[in-house]
């Protein structure tokens, strides 16, 4: 089956090394159970994976598979029921200073009473900086995402794509080592989405950082990432780790036309379809993880 493709084998190697060495960010047997009135809801069953420093890791899975819950736990915003997150070997119990979460719903996450520049400045509220450097960081972040000329506008005066750019500028001004992104381009049109994907890759290669990117868009995950984790339907587990050996810099047309790209995409797609079709998830996990 799909398990025997070369890419799957490489995924197996990645998992093996994840177990043997300490990684930059370790997600260890993370579980989230919500206690209900009558019964418990298992949002996240058992997530176990690691991210290397400066790696671009995407997580794809069927919708409603607990990706947001997982990300909030990794970000230190939500305490897990079981398991833990280690950053450089230290457990994450609150939002770590070097980590920022970018939300899907930019409209709800921006401060609509602040201007564009004011929103970027928001990231620096708790950072000790000389006024000159503060202004410099705001300017730079706005330059990178191409919003410099809109600095005195209000977020609600911008298009959706520009608002999401603003949210990314805000995250960049904070200069995080780790960027967690929760379906950041999920509600944008295809052209804007492609543009922002490339902008993100530019930023990632010019200012190296670790990116954990959650998406339901398989092609997006393959296009952007060094490695893709495939999650099962709820309660979620990692079904497979897939290393993406596509040349960088990537290009919307050239990369996506590569035969390899199409193979990766089809592989992930098949995997997720099997998951949502209600195929027994657990046994598949063990065979896949075994490589």
């Amino acid at each position, binding site marked *: 089956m799909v398990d025997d493709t070369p890419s799957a084998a490489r995924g197996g190697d990645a998992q093996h090394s994840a177990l043997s060495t300490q990684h930059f960010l370790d997600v260890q047997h993370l579980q989230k159970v919500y206690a209900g009135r009558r019964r418990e809801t298992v949002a996240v069953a058992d997530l176990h994976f690691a991210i290397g420093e400066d790696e671009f890791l995407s997580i794809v899975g069927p919708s409603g598979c607990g990706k947001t819950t997982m990300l909030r736990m990794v970000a230190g*915003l939500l305490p897990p029921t079981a398991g833990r997150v280690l950053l450089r070997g230290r457990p994450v119990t609150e939002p770590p200073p070097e980590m920022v979460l970018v939300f899907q719903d930019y409209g709800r996450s921006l401060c609509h009473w602040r201007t564009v520049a004011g929103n970027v400045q928001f990231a620096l509220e708790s950072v000790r900086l000389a006024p000159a450097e503060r202004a410099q960081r705001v300017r730079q972040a706005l330059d990178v995402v191409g919003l410099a000329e809109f600095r005195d506008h209000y977020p*609600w005066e911008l298009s959706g794509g520009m608002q999401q750019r603003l949210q990314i500028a805000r995250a960049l001004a904070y200069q995080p080592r780790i960027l967690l992104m929760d379906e950041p381009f999920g509600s944008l049109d295809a052209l804007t989405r492609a543009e922002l994907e490339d902008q993100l890759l530019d930023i990632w290669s010019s200012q190296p950082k670790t990116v954990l990117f959650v998406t339901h868009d398989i092609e997006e995950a393959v296009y952007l990432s060094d490695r893709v984790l495939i999650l099962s339907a709820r309660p979620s587990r990692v079904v497979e780790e897939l290393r993406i050996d596509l040349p960088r810099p990537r290009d919307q047309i050239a990369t996506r036309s590569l035969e390899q790209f199409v193979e990766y995409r089809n592989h992930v797609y098949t995997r997720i379809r099997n998951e949502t079709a209600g195929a027994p998830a657990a046994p598949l996990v063990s065979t896949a993880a075994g490589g």
Partner: protein
Amino acid sequence: MRPTRLLGFVLVAVLLGVWEAAARTGLLDARFVPAPSSIAVAWVGFAASGQLVSDLLATLGSWAQGYAIAAMLGVALGVLMGLMPAVRAMLGTTVELLRPMPSVAIIPIAIVLFGLGDPMKRFVVAYAALWPVLVNTLYGVLAVDPLLHDTARTFRLGPLRSTLRVVLPAASPYIATGLRISTSIALILVITAELVASRNGLGYFVRASEQASRVPEVYAGVLTIAVLGYLLNALFVAVEARVLAWHRGLMRTEAA
């Protein structure tokens, strides 16, 4: 000035004209409903004697002080209740018991506690104006998007900073509603307190004029209070339009 606003003033002028004519022709008994012209004469006398200024200042002083106390206390309690479920649970019942009571009922107690005078007026105003501010602030804080709380936490804003920088501004449209309701409630209460038990202020002027059977002065005082209420509201609306311009813009784009 917009034509509709102008039309409003035209109607007021027409009504005054009709009133004047009715009083002069004897259609209205001038002993009880004096003509606007004689009310105007009384008002000029009220103003020229310097009593208008001193009564206006007395009323405005009690209004402003009581209102300021209510605004600060209401916002502070509303934020605490909104952010801390324990505080909300503790104070919720008390608030729900006290709030529905017509605030004028507190006046006798205020007189017992503070006697006749400005402290009594301040207390009554502060008490009555507190509830709209508190309740609206509470709702506003509860309505703050959880994603904004997450945003504040991911950028590591502490509790104080995130209250000042996120919660208060996000809840400000609600808080403004409470403050606007309270401007007029505060005026109602300060005038009532002055009518019932006071030795200064516009309310006192109206009552004293009434007891002395100076009917035109009664009307002059009442109209002064009406204009004061109108101006205070207009001032509030103007300030709100500036401070909450972002919110109107946001609402417009969300509606579009």
